[in-house]
């Protein structure tokens, strides 16, 4: 199962071009959805106003090198989900983030470079399955145990709300992707395989089309906010107090 290109069997009833067009449409949906999200929530306007306000309050100007260094530090922090202060959330987020990247890159590679399945390097479907399993592991852990409304606000682990419009379809879509792959590799039953594929596509479409109403766009604006925060600390415009000069921990 792990070494078969899951999308190769689709050529029985779908031309490779259809799958490629679907990927392009979903990419456009994310792009348009994110721009629409930024527009109708006014977050770009808020962010620009905030930047202008803090720029005016800056006590020193940052050089290009310093700004680049801050950008690199922000990327390094985002790469290890360093913004999370609790390790369970951090690990679950890392599993989902890198799992999603693996899953996404291998999906695109298999659909565009090896649509017919022949000569697909075994590493691609293997990484696709590993990525999907990482998303499921991190996502289910997050969904049932780490969601803050469940862990701190008394909501049931099965509670579903608008805040779950990102993680919910992601988990269901990935679960159906793995089930579909398992079914076609193990049993090869055409009807059940097509039903599972239909469910997989339905929830994948829901995941990408719901971007304006879901938390999908956070993966773009969170790093921007983290970068701005570093800039404010560096140029003296941060509204936070200066770090204490004295250490008061004097006993063990």
């Amino acid at each position, binding site marked *: 199962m792990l070494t078969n290109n899951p999308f190769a069997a689709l050529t029985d009833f779908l031309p490779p071009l259809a799958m490629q067009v679907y990927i392009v449409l979903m990419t456009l949906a994310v792009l348009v959805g994110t721009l629409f999200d930024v527009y109708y929530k006014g977050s770009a306007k808020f962010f620009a106003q905030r930047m202008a306000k803090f720029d005016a309050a800056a006590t020193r100007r940052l050089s290009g090198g310093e700004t680049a260094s801050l950008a690199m530090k922000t990327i390094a922090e985002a790469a290890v989900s360093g913004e*999370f202060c609790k390790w369970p959330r951090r690990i679950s987020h890392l599993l989902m983030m890198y799992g999603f990247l693996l899953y996404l890159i291998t999906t695109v590679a298999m659909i565009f470079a090896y649509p017919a399945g022949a000569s697909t390097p075994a590493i691609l479907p293997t990484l696709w399955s590993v990525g999907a399993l990482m998303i499921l592991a991190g996502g289910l852990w997050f969904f049932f145990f780490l969601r803050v*409304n469940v862990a*701190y*606000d008394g909501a049931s682990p099965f509670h579903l709300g608008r*805040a779950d419009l990102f993680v919910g379809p992601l988990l269901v879509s990935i679960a159906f992707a793995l089930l579909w792959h398992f079914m076609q590799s193990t049993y090869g039953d055409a009807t059940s395989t097509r039903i599972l594929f239909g469910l997989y596509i339905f929830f994948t479409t829901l995941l990408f089309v719901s971007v304006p109403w879901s*938390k999908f766009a956070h993966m773009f604006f969170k790093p921007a*906010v983290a970068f701005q925060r570093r800039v404010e600390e560096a140029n003296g415009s941060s509204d*936070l*107090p200066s770090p204490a000069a004295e250490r008061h921990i004097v006993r063990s």
Partner: protein
Amino acid sequence: MPTYTDMTRCDGCGECVDICPSDIMHIDPVHRRSYNIEPNFCWECYSCVKACPQNAIDVRGYADFAPLGHKVRVLREPEKGSISWKIRYRDGRLKEFTFPIRTTPWGSIKAAQDYEKPDLSALSSPLLAHEPTALHIDALPTIKKA
């Protein structure tokens, strides 16, 4: 001066929900970030402001008597045992204060259940539970009878 959450800074960790003695810090069902559900019931204890690891919570006065423009920001540095405040007044003045909050490492205070169960005879002692060891002294000072 009730609290509010800057949602772009909040990462939804739940610390403020956990610590709020008035149970008014809750999780927004749309964005899964914290928010103050009832600002007029806020005790203004600033527990959430101090507990927030992302410095995402600020306080603001009611618009009828405290025109916007002031700011109260806090920086908790558990590794230094201090808490610092930066106050911006409505006329633009800025003041910063730093206070020591403890002298032992963060998380080192033993919970009551970590101590041995005291003997019942300790009830007749003038000492409180786990005194004097919990105070890091050998004995409490006593008044000598003349």
